[in-house]
């Protein structure tokens, strides 16, 4: 599976791990990975360490996740993007919009 999500014991911690290509083909699976997590204050951690490609529609998908997190007063953290994905995030200046941890 290219996208696997794990919900923590407290229900307020969701870890989403994306592998291989993070692009439009993952749209539905990605959305399904978080849309049922509606507990206020949920922290969504997006582990990109195993992803090797990301396109602009994936940036759009991050914005949808952010919108969902904002709605429930939660937050999102992008974790360990590789160099090429980090470059995409940097060009898009996404650190202004969400936390990115290398």
């Amino acid at each position: 599976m290219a996208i696997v999500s794990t919900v923590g014991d407290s229900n307020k911690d969701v870890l989403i791990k994306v592998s291989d290509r993070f692009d439009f083909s993952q749209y539905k699976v990605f959305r399904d990975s978080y849309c049922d997590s509606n507990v206020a204050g949920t922290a969504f951690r997006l582990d990109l360490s195993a992803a090797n490609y990301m396109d602009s529609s994936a940036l759009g998908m991050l914005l949808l996740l952010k919108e969902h997190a904002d709605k429930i007063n939660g937050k999102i953290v992008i974790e360990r993007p590789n160099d090429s994905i980090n470059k995409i995030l940097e060009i898009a200046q996404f650190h202004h919009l969400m936390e990115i941890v290398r």
Partner: protein
Amino acid sequence: MSSNDRHVLIIDADNEHLERLAAIIGDEGFKVTKSNNGMEGMVKFYQNRPDLVVIDYGDGTSRLETCRQIKALASETFVPIIIVAPYLNDEQISRCIEAGSDDIIFRPFSMAIFRSKIHSMFRIGEIYSKLYTLTAARQNDEELAEALFSQVVEKGNVAEDNIKIFKRSAETFSGDVQLTALCPNGDINVLLGDFTGHGLSSAIGAIPLSDTFRAMTDKGYSSLEIIKQINRKMHQLLPTHMFLAMQMVTLSVTEGIAYVWNAGMEDIFHFDASTGALKERICSFHPPLGITANLIGDMKPKLVTLSPNDRIIMYSDGIVEARNSVGEFFGEERLISASQLGFAHGDVQRHIIAALEVFCEDLQQDDDISLVDINCDISLYHDLGLAKGSERDLPIEDTLITQSSDFWTWQMAISGEKLASLNPIPLIINQLQEIEGPGEHWYNLFTVLTELYVNALDHGVLNLNSELKNSPEGFASYFDEKEVRLAQVGDGYIKIQLQHQSTPSGGLLSITLIDSGSGFEFTPWIEPGQADNLGDNEFSGRGIKLVSGLCQSLSYKGNGSVVNAMYRWDR
């Protein structure tokens, strides 16, 4: 389609087999056409246009040829073919598939299996026909959008000889937008935008984008104001996951500098074309537009000082992310070397595209490709501004203030923090156009008002010394200092008064600006004979020289804190 409408053609040399198959298919409620040889089968196919063909394997070769020909006759319509055969070896099976057969059923088979295969083929056929309809509809929409796009969005670009634009779409319709437009003062705005995705969905924003860009450029709004408004529009318009990555360059013909913006796109390159040296890169400093309701933080353009040999190259990620057969990216380095080769041979665009094509060979392109090559020799653009302006030297006929019915006055005062945030010039021009109607004669007036206002603000209210602007480096520190002083402007104010008297051919406008400053050293710039001594490379003083050239008269009072200009216009 109900089963009664479905039509099956059976080709089998063995009459017993033929009748048996026909009976099974007929029992399912399908219409059946029978044939016991390939040639006749093809004719019947052509006459009856069946939805499915069942063929016996027969001798192999000639049947497979029938199979091929039927597929060719079906052309873009999907007509499934099932081959009925005794045991076949691997090679024979693959030859059947190559010939266009969609399934093979081996003898002996049960009636149940045969029926299932027929139904399964019809199901696949339905998917194909839906896909075909959808593709045709989409293609139609895209062609329409493409036509609209080239007619509405990109029509009206200016300076095409010196701002070269190349575009190649991944699909018929492109998510990339390239626009150029002329400001009232002769400056030129160049915009390269890349909407998320491709195809029709990425085009939703293109028309409002180009409308906003053109209308605001035309009215003389600053690039910051234009970008703020585009951001606002895109935020309202685009769904959450869509946005607009965008670069904008304002070539300031009067100042000899470029104001450069980069919101979420690849680095912009600033080259010296005579040496090929890459002087500067302007990387993205803001997220793409349309994501947040307002721009993030204190967004300011990068200032680039221009020399006549300079070139600015803007491009979309489709170029650097184009891949070759082993999956490597074209990348920045190849783009830079191709540009340098292009400068040396006088054709940047052709060299970049050639390098890209050699690199990618015949591989299909995944993304839109856009390239904008701006020649930064500002003298090339002077004529554009003048062509748009009106005749300058007109004799004085009337004097103002005759208090006839054709007379009006208009004034406004701006003070405190508004001085930092409000640009009154577009408001004034709008006001004038409301009263006196639109026209090209306002372009020069725009320059006059801007120069007078900037002088009143910078040298009057803010008391900035324009000598700072004598060097390119000073230019930046001048703007930094301006920001600092604007933040502490306190009770400072500027009053603007317009008095207008109609004349038979147009009107005479008296413009008065009063500022709260203690005046500034204005005499050297407007004394007769002095103004002409100013070299074109000087960074200051040209403003007043320009204004006095465009107006009938220009006079300063109160040490320079009161200025009056008389501007005459004709229809």
